[in-house]
């Protein structure tokens, strides 16, 4: 597994966000570094929802945070509408930020408990000097209605709302500045299933209503499948597989993608349940394996996987990309 390379990048005017060779490393001592993201490239077309899946430590959240420049990028390019965000700083970066908004995993801790929710939602606008005036208040009311929070509760504080309602307030806050891109980092993992459905539906509604482009990060494969047009599977800081949501689930090529699909409690029909029995533990990101990063656990690994890193390459010239020396041939696999 473990892919670098630009094969999956599309050219065209519709590309809104393009990430190339993104590397994020965190120093933990004078000698050692955590290789959180190592050479990831992908792009997001305007109006598309891109899902990123992978297990803890695969770098999916780091990618999200690096795009909005919450983490310092070690190297690489994050191009948004033709500008490299990694090269911007100070006022220039501040000017772009309203266009890229984020919602987080824990809805309660991402709201200031001491503030009224109307103020929480208005704050972005106040910062841009649009916080007063009846037009703004109308817009806030409209947003609150859109996410299903009655505007008359605007004077309440976060603790008076449930987790699902707090997440909806978080969405309203993110949308207040009329962003182009919404980055959702595990937005439903802290919620109960009935509430999860409400929040996922709202994200879909908001996408349609405000023409958003969404980057949706989750460890839950069924949730990602439900909201995404395209999906990236990541493992240990690298891309394994990129393709349309239907394609990734119908014809998974990478052994790691297949292992994930076989591990969920009700496994996908396109893989054999035994493929979920991957051996060993996740290697340390301080000292990742050379060659393919999945080589320590991959049932198909051969010598080349230990010496040479597989590049992201198109499967039969389609828009399904896989980074593997031995991608699984679908013809011989179960149920395909």
């Amino acid at each position, binding site marked *: 597994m473990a892919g670098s390379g630009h094969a999956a990048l599309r050219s065209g005017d519709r590309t809104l966000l393009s990430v190339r060779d993104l590397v994020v490393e965190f120093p933990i001592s004078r000698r050692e570094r955590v290789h959180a993201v190592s050479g990831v490239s992908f792009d997001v077309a305007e109006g598309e929802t891109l899902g990123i899946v992978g297990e803890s430590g695969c770098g999916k959240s780091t990618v999200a945070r690096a795009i909005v420049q919450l983490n310092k990028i070690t190297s690489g390019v994050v191009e948004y509408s033709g500008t490299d965000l990694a090269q911007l700083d100070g006022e220039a970066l501040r000017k772009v930020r309203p266009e890229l908004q984020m919602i987080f995993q824990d809805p309660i801790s991402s709201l200031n408990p001491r503030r009224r929710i109307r103020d929480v939602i208005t704050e972005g606008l106040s910062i841009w000097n649009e916080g007063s005036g009846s037009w703004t208040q109308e817009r806030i009311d409209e947003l609150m209605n859109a996410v299903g929070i009655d505007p008359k509760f605007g004077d309440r504080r976060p603790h008076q709302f449930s987790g699902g309602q707090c997440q909806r307030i978080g969405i309203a806050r993110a949308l207040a500045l009329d962003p182009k891109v919404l980055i959702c980092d595990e937005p439903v993992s802290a919620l109960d*299933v009935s509430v999860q*459905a409400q929040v996922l539906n709202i994200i879909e509604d908001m996408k349609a209503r405000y023409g958003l482009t969404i980057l949706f990060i989750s460890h839950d494969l069924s949730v990602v499948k439900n909201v995404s047009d395209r999906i990236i599977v990541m493992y240990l800081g690298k891309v394994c597989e990129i393709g349309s949501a239907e394609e990734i689930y119908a014809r998974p090529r990478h052994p790691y993608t297949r292992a994930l699909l076989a591990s969920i409690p*009700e496994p996908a029909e396109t893989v054999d349940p035994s493929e979920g029995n991957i051996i060993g*533990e996740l290697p340390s990101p301080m000292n990742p394996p050379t060659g393919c990063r999945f080589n320590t656990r991959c049932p198909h690994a051969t010598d080349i996987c230990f010496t040479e890193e597989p590049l992201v390459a198109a499967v039969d010239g389609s828009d399904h990309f896989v980074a593997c020396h031995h991608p699984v041939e679908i013809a011989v696999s179960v149920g395909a």
Partner: protein
Amino acid sequence: MGQPLLSVRDLQVRFPTTRGLVQAVNGVDFDIERGAMLGVVGESGCGKSVTAKTLMNLLPRTAEVSGEITFDGEDVRAIARSRRKHFWGVKMTMVFQDPMTSLNPVKRCGEQIAETLRYHLNMGHDEAMARAVDLLEQVGIPEPARRVRQFPHELSGGLRQRVVIAMALACEPELLIADEPTTAVDVTVQKRLLDLLDELRRDRGMSMILITHDLGVARGRCDEVAVMYAGRLVERAATEVLFSDARHPYTSALLRTIPRIDQPSHTRLEPIEGRPPELIRPADQCAFAPRCRHAQADCLDGIPAVVDNADGRIFACRYPANTEDGRRSYLANEAAGRTVTGLEIAQPKETN
């Protein structure tokens, strides 16, 4: 099968708080046969963990418990003080959600397992340590002899949970209660832990209660599943029956609310509108009625009786899903555009 290993009747648990008495568990009944796996599912606050803690005698002293808990023919709530300390932790043990908080961070893993053996079974230090290595091997930890000397922080989440499972198995329990054992771990690790628990249960003929909010986990692993809502058990049936032909509208709504991997992308999900009721002074009505698409006027008049047609399932509903009555009540609500509780029914849906 003879008498069940564990039998719970009319279990009630109340907690006094400054705002009033919280009815956390309100009349729960179930049996577990030897060697069986019962799944308990429900959302946060439905009382599934409180039920587990009641069985394990882990509730705070202020809790008011009533009802019968019979384990192997013996009334658990009346066990003599002298025998108590070697009942819980020996015959009945529990695995918790977060392995890091159930392990002592400043003690080596091996010692924590050996401690159980020395306390309950009076083993000597060396014998207990040797047994700890054995146990780690049984739960599939590689290099057990090295791992016993490690501290919890040196292990990954999956390995830590295996250590906790090893501790729970140390005294060869007859019943293992696992409360969300895989919620804090990744899917590949989850599969391995559940496979392990399944295997251990079969090898030892142990019974298990698996508490989970994940319906998929319950479906894949349990013989029988109980669904809880607002402190009550609303439906209980054999796993396949429950998932293919649910009777309680809450069960069927829960099943429809989860995204499924075999559905196309952007399939509209059906959330359950509203929120669970307050557990302080609950109204004398079906707790699910305000959120139920089947609700009729008499649903607001008293708690529905438990229906037991002796077909291996029970449910507490007057207009059950997948039946003629249920369909009629739903169609009536759909025609009116709303239920008696004011829940709006927007678009027409096919049967449920």
